[in-house]
């Protein structure tokens, strides 16, 4: 009986490491998803004015595109966050939790930053295309026809 009790006491606790892994996963998901939501909301709020300008003040179209971009952003980021969740290393102790978490979060933040700049690039590209349509010829004319009214008559 005594031997049996000793056996139980000396048995390594399998739940301990699992708990730390689960804690890491939980903290990772909370942090990563809340960061994604924060970046998405910032983009949604501050990107609107860019889009309104791109669509010549058509606010309805701008809001629609803004919303679609937001959905795409959420899908891509949350998809990446969930794919990147699993860790192969054994997590032991509080130190292990922090190390695993900072490594994961670092990559997620870099990906979020990359996505953010990509979004900005798309916005400026769209805005540039919209402003191009109203630009005058880039090279000033070399001559000017003396009798401009006659020319307009022949058009």
């Amino acid at each position, binding site marked *: 009986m005594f031997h049996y009790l000793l056996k139980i006491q000396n048995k390594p606790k399998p739940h301990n490491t699992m708990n730390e892994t689960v804690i890491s996963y939980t903290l990772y998901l909370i942090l990563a998803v809340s960061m994604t939501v924060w970046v998405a909301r910032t983009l949604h709020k501050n990107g609107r004015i860019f889009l309104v300008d791109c669509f010549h003040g058509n606010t309805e179209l701008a809001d629609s595109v803004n919303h679609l971009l937001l959905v795409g952003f959420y899908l891509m980021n949350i998809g990446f966050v969930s794919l990147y969740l699993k860790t192969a290393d054994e997590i032991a102790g509080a130190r292990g939790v922090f190390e695993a978490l900072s490594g994961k979060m670092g990559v997620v933040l870099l990906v979020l930053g990359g996505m953010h700049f990509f979004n900005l690039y798309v916005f400026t590209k769209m805005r*540039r295309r919209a402003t*191009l*349509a109203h*630009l*005058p*010829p*880039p*090279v*000033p*004319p*070399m*001559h*000017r*026809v*003396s*009798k*401009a009214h*006659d*020319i*307009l008559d*022949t*058009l």
Partner: protein
Amino acid sequence: MNTLTIFYDAHCGLCSRFRRWMLDQAAYVHLDFMPYDSEQARKRCPDLPNLRADQEIVVMGDDGSLWQGAGAWVTCLWALREYREWSLRLASPGLQQIARRVVHWISSNRISLSHLLRLRSDDALRAEVSHVSCDTGTCAVD
């Protein structure tokens, strides 16, 4: 500006090919092509004979602005939807100098370049079409 008139060389295959290419592109303004030596061109732009349009391409806006050579090429690109960004790049002073040289070389060798590339001019095509005879009920090129 709503209309851009391009006084091109209808005897040159390269220029005629360029005209067809430009008309295939989506443009911001209406493009009007006229052979530089036609009566119609002289009527629209009386200053044309003084500009030596036979040496370098001349482009005119509907406000009477005239461009020639590299400036005319850049203005042609500016008129096209897909190439407006390129025209802004080419308009920088450094690139304009290179463009001026390239355009001048192309303009002075345009006939030999057309022969080399086997491009037929609008005039040659027109001459061929005018030889079509339809007397027998079916049309044939002589």
